[in-house]
């Protein structure tokens, strides 16, 4: 706050013009909010200690799982209590302890203060609620899934540490805390992808994830540094006060400065890395090498949405730029990623990979949503996606667990009709319906529609080509429905057929797993029969079933927030956060009066926008004077109100994809509405279609050879350069310099060595000759 006092004009603006900006002065929050990251940290430390002091009974002790589950559960309850006590509107700043506080001068920008403090506004609450909630649920699931693995304590230690880092990222009240959490989740992601460290592919995937993320993190680090040099602070409340006032740290206007363009662009690169957007997406599909609970929590529900969080949190900075350059890139890249990942997802056979590509695709939707100025749609999609994608992954994990690592959809069929697999199948169905955006009954439908409709609503003058973005997203929605139900139709319904995978449980040792049976709730005869050539899949136990059921219900209940309040519960939360942006181009369902009220109170006007006609002023009756700056009308969908018709249009696309999947992959009978004809696990109509479309199917199956392309343009040149440097090192540094310097004494030695002949007479002759020479010298000197 010292900085604010130092600049009188700024504080005047911040308080005086408050009703025009989303900036709210923060109030102090209760200290016990520090328990949210504190409890998982305690869990991580205890698990690590158990591992170090060998108290985990070689992985057989269940204490780490239940301890971490309980601590995460308490963490969730604390978050919930905090949220219920939170007074909507004013963010909380909870000061835990002083962390970094240095000053090298008394002027503005000559000090750096970054405390271990938490900034709780609508955005933080939303993220923290699902991070801790899903974290606890998935931790319970993992307690069964990871059972009897030697690294049990190691797994839960890293798992808890992940939640700590994620809390730090989301709750931190300054950019340094965000960065700490950002790198922390990256580290935990690395540790957990490479959890099966004896498996070369897992180690390679972990390295790939870490290295690709470094590229993004470079952008983030530069962005944060530029933010600091521009504003002289990294604390959110000071930062956003300045951004709302449209000034930088020394009181100069930000309009048209290069910083206004480059800060968002750099932050965006960081977001692309963490949220796996093109071209930095290649690490996420490979990250599926990690245990499935990790894929569900980190690589689907929470960590990969950190990029969305970053952009939403920094939205005022993204709006600083008159031309919205960064948001254009975000929109295009998100849309392209959504489409590209969907095409790859359609051609994969590994169900976990399909889910990974669908995660990429859905993240693309979120970025597209941020790009077309609907933070509400993006955040709501993050929220619903967290639930249904976790459900899908955990269902896939249950399949993998039960069928000895089998993930090939050609080798599994009819799980619905197998004993003990009904809950998994129903959860999978719920997840698939949500991901496909099946109308009305699924949360995924509402959140996806919000983004697509907004893409059509946002005027092309503001985000160039937003209608095109809308169309691509619509087509992608159809493709999503197709590949999602391709999995469901092939694996979960149809004739009962299965072929076990080549590992036990998809992980580590299977020595006595299932023998006792009672600890899992499944009977002893489910024990593996690899040896006698007869395989019994073991159905999931209570923990997996319970979590799947809870998440399936959660995915469905996630519809409700859409109907709470004017813009949904999530919209209400975002309204009380820095991510708030009222586009002013749409939302035609809202009654005019409410809308006008909303606008007069909470309009975020891009700081630099007063001179930008494109989006300078919202076209609203409530602000007639604003029309002078220029008028922009909301776009429409083929001449119709996009928000009104989008429900029907996207329904059409979703159902078309579903029907296509049913026709190509559906089994004979009612499950595929009578249009499917599949009678075997491995054979379907799609095989003929794949032949018909020629090499395209094969290209998509090979992920469009993007990895190979990167290999060619990045790794190969790097390897060539490395070889050149290696040769230089060998020949020039080692050869010419080091060995060259050593050559001189060696040559000298070689010249002088014959003198040391070992022959006594040689020495004697030398001595005598020496005496003779001395005598001669003396004589000559005496004579002359």
């Amino acid at each position, binding site marked *: 706050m010292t900085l604010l006092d130092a600049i009188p004009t700024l504080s005047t603006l911040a308080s005086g013009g408050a009703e025009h900006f989303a900036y709210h002065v923060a109030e102090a929050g209760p200290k016990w909010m520090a328990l949210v990251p504190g409890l998982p940290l305690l869990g991580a430390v205890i698990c690590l200690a158990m591992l170090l002091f060998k108290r985990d009974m070689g992985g057989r002790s269940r204490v780490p799982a239940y301890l971490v589950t309980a601590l995460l559960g308490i963490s969730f309850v604390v978050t919930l209590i905090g949220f219920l006590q939170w007074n909507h509107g004013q963010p909380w700043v909870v000061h835990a302890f002083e962390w970094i506080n240095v000053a090298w001068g008394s002027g503005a920008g000559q000090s750096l203060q970054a405390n271990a403090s938490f900034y709780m506004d609508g955005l933080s609450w939303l993220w923290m609620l699902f991070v801790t909630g899903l974290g606890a649920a998935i931790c319970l699931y993992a307690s069964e899934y990871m059972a009897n693995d030697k690294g049990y304590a190691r797994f839960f230690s890293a798992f808890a540490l992940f939640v700590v880092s994620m809390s730090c990222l989301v709750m931190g009240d300054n950019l340094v805390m965000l960065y700490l959490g950002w790198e922390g989740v990256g580290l935990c992601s690395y540790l957990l992808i490479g959890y099966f460290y004896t498996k070369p592919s897992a180690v390679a995937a972990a390295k790939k994830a870490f290295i690709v993320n470094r590229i993004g993190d470079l952008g983030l680090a530069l962005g944060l540094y530029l933010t600091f040099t521009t504003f002289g602070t990294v604390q959110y409340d000071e930062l956003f006060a300045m951004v709302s006032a449209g000034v930088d740290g020394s009181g100069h206007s930000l309009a048209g400065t290069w910083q206004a363009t480059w800060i968002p662009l750099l932050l965006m690169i960081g977001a692309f890395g963490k949220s796996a957007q093109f071209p930095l997406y290649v690490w996420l599909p490979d990250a599926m090498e990690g245990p499935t609970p990790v894929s569900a929590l980190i690589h689907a529900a929470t960590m990969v949405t950190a990029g969305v969080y970053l952009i939403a949190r920094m939205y005022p900075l993204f709006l600083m730029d008159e031309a919205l350059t960064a948001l254009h890139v975000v929109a295009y890249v998100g849309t392209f990623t959504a489409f590209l990942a969907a095409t790859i997802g359609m051609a994969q056979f590994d169900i976990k990979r399909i889910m990974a590509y669908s995660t990429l695709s859905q993240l693309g939707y979120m970025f597209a949503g941020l790009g077309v100025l609907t933070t509400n749609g993006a955040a709501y999609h993050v929220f619903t996606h967290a639930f249904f994608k976790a459900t899908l992954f955990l269902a896939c994990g249950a399949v993998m667990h039960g069928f000895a690592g089998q993930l090939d959809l050609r080798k599994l069929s009819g799980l619905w009709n197998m004993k003990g697999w009904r809950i998994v199948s129903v959860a999978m169905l719920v997840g698939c319906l949500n991901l496909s955006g099946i109308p009305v009954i699924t949360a995924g439908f509402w959140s996806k529609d919000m983004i697509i409709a907004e893409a059509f609503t946002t005027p092309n003058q503001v985000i160039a080509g937003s209608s095109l973005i809308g169309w691509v997203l619509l087509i992608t929605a159809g493709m999503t429905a197709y590949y999602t139900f391709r999995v469901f139709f092939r694996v979960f319904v149809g004739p009962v057929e299965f072929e076990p995978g080549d590992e036990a449980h998809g992980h580590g040792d299977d020595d006595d797993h299932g023998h006792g049976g009672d600890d899992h709730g499944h009977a002893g005869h489910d024990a593996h029969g690899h040896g006698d050539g007869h395989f019994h899949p073991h159905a999931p136990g209570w923990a997996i079933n319970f979590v799947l059921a809870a998440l399936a219900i959660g995915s469905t209940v996630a519809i409700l927030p859409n109907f709470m309040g004017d813009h949904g519960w999530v919209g209400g939360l975002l309204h009380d956060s820095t991510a708030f942006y009222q586009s002013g181009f749409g939302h035609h369902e809202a009654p005019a009066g409410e809308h006008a009220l909303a606008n007069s109170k909470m309009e975020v006007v891009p700081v630099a926008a007063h001179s930008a006609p494109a989006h300078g002023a919202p076209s609203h009756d409530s602000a007639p004077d604003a029309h002078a700056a220029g008028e922009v009308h909301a776009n429409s969908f083929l001449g119709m109100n996009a928000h009104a018709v989008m429900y029907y249009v996207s329904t059409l696309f979703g159902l078309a994809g579903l029907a296509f999947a049913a026709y190509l992959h559906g089994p004979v009978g009612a499950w595929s509405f009578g249009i499917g004809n599949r009678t075997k696990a491995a054979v379907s109509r799609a095989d003929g279609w794949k032949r018909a479309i020629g090499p395209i199917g094969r290209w998509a199956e090979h992920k469009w050879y993007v990895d190979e392309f990167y290999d060619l343009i990045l790794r190969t040149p790097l390897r060539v350069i490395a070889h050149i440097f290696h040769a230089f090192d060998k020949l020039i540094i080692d050869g010419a310099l080091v060995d060259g310097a050593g050559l001189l004494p060696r040559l000298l030695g070689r010249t002088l*060595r014959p003198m*040391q002949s*070992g*022959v*006594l007479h040689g020495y*004697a002759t030398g001595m*005598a000759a020496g005496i003779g020479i001395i005598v001669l010298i003396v004589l000559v000197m*005496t004579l002359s």
Partner: protein
Amino acid sequence: MLINLLASHAAPQLHAAIEGGLGAITLYHYLFVAMVMFALGVIGFLARRNLIIMFLSTELMFQGAGLALIAFSRYHFNHTGEVFVIFVLTVAAAEAALALALVVLLFRQRESLDAQEWSSLQG
């Protein structure tokens, strides 16, 4: 010839001694004998390969030096040189005992007295 050179420059008395036929034996005669002994020692040491002969040659060099010392001592009427020669003879006797013992040991090793046999300490 060498002695001529030496004599003509360094000592006029030598001319008298040589020109006067078999005159009195002067210091220069002693020195000449000492020099011849020393030179023979050096030549013997360099030319022969038998360890014992080589050892004998060193003894000869010793005695040449000792003779020169005694001659100078007598010439200057100073007994220091004579005392010193007695010490040298003592050391030489001790050294002779040691050296002969070494030669015996070396002989036992190689069954030969050839100095060329011992050249393993080469660079």
